[in-house]
């Protein structure tokens, strides 16, 4: 009996095994079929992405070592690090980096607290809240071009809506985008108006993902609303906060239409954003090699900032 059981058991198991798994040959054919299918399914996407992202980045880095004209890129001259050397001594290029970083800082510093405040305010259940959320979100879906066009006329020193509003509350006129001190703050205000609805939506999503029990438990423990906000809600929104910071920084660094339409980088280069500077160097001043070098520097700046912020995000996530 015992011997029988031992000799019989293995074949039984093997049978069960083959029943569960598909036969080996079929599996291998299946794997090959999957590989072929994956190739067909992915190839068009990967090919385009490789051309318009990876090849483009390579081309840009190569071009940054050349001096050439847009009309005839093939007849460029290798100039080594000249473009980069010129950049270090170019006050406009340096200022454009400073202005862009200042702009980003201004946007992040205003958008995070205001977006959060709006989200908390519009998280209550009352009549009209849904409509108000849509209204605050409206500028987000409006193109930067339309927003900047609108605000160019709002900021017009005479006949503009902004100064008319200031006079209405008995304040003196401002020069807005026509003064080198006021242009950048004016642009930050406009961008805040345009983008704050987006931060609000992200914070709202974050707030609504916090279980009600957390706040209730804190309330039972005797925490007042102020304490509940700082000790419970805000730490739980860490991830969203970093997200808002990342998104608004990247948006700010990409700013172009604002300068192109409203100020042409002025007055006195006070709104000469990086992308606008690249555009003018390449298309107005006809030096695409130099503009490529600035683009490479911009790419490096963007990568450093996003990696740092994403690392912060990951760190916070693990907490």
């Amino acid at each position, binding site marked *: 009996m015992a011997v029988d059981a031992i000799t019989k058991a293995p074949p039984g198991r093997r049978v069960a095994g083959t029943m569960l798994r598909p036969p080996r040959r079929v599996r291998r054919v299946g794997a090959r079929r999957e590989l072929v299918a994956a190739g067909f*399914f992915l190839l068009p*996407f990967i090919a385009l992405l490789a*051309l318009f992202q990876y090849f483009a980045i390579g081309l840009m880095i190569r071009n940054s070592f050349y001096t050439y004209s847009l009309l005839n890129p093939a007849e460029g001259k290798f100039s080594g690090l000249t473009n980069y050397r010129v950049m270090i001594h170019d006050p406009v290029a340096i200022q454009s980096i400073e202005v862009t970083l200042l702009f980003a800082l201004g946007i992040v510093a205003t958008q995070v607290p205001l977006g959060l405040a709006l989200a908390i305010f519009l998280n209550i259940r009352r009549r009209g809240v849904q409509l108000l959320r849509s209204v605050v979100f409206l500028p987000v879906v409006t193109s930067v071009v339309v927003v900047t066009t609108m605000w160019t006329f*709002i900021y017009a020193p005479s006949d503009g809506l902004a*100064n008319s509003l200031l006079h209405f509350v008995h304040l003196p006129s401002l020069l807005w985008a026509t003064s080198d001190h006021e242009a950048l703050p004016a642009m930050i205000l406009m961008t805040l108006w345009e983008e704050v609805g987006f931060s609000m939506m992200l914070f709202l999503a974050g707030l609504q993902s916090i279980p009600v029990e957390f706040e209730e438990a804190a309330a039972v423990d005797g925490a007042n609303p102020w304490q509940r906000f700082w000790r419970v809600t805000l730490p739980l929104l860490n991830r969203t906060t970093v997200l808002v910071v990342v998104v608004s920084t990247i948006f700010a660094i990409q700013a172009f239409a604002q300068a192109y339409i409203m100020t042409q980088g002025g007055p006195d280069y006070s709104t000469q954003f990086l992308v606008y500077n*690249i555009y003018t160097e390449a298309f107005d001043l006809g030096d695409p090699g130099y503009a490529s070098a600035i683009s490479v520097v911009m790419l490096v700046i963007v990568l450093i900032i996003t990696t740092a912020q994403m690392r912060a*995000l990951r760190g916070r996530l693990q907490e």
Partner: protein
Amino acid sequence: MSAGLTTIVGRQNIGVQVQRRRSRRAAATALYWLLTLLLFFAFLAPFVWIVSSSFKPQAYIFSDVEPLSWRTFLPTGASLTNYSSAFSTENVGTGLINSAIVSCSQVALTIVLAVPAAYALTRLRFRGRGVLFTLIFITFMVPAEVLILPLFQIASKLHVANSLPGVFLPFIASPFALFLLRQAFRDIPRELDEAALIDGAGHVRIMTSVILPNVKPALATLSLMTFLFSWNAFLWPLIVIQSPSRELIQVAIAINTVPGELPNWGPVFAGAVIAVLPVLVLFLFVQRYFIRGFVMSGLKG
């Protein structure tokens, strides 16, 4: 006696408390409405001013803005002159048609490319999938604005510069689309496609008749977001298109604002209203897909 007294005192206290609570609630309501009105004004006033001014002659726009009054925000002396001149002299009509062609093509091609790619990344097992995945998503970190110069060179080489396909071709392989669809595909239970596989369906069949019908909301979100990005894009269309007959709407209205000397306010306002109208209508009707899409796009970081 003493028990009766305490209940009276207690009752008085409760009365005071209720009163206090009521007045506090009234104050909260007042504050709520005050903030609400303020926000409505702050976010709607610019739109209302532009829209109502777009129906006014230039002299009225100026005379109605100062001093600020209800006239500022109402279309006094309404006429469509600005709109007809926007269409006749400012290239707005051509821009609308070209933008519609570009945006619709971009939506269609983005989906056609991203659906099979997302299928392969979620449903097919092959060597190097992880590496490929990383290589695709790393491009998320590269803003399109950085690459305009090499893209212009590539577009010229491919003979698509100064053509409508040249506007959308560099962006139809969209990592954002792939990301969004991958999330949606992963939420569909694998049992569904395994059942179809046993019935003898191939991968194309599974993709089109098992997966796609189950990800309609994600497809709607993706279409709307792609349309919005494409419709609102500015820098690349400005560079890649030179002929006025192929100009897109955003470029058309931006160029009307720029020259600056003495811009004709009315037609520029009319152009801005026309440019934002399609997006606005879409937003009003399918808002939740938009907001979902924006929250998703935020999550990409």
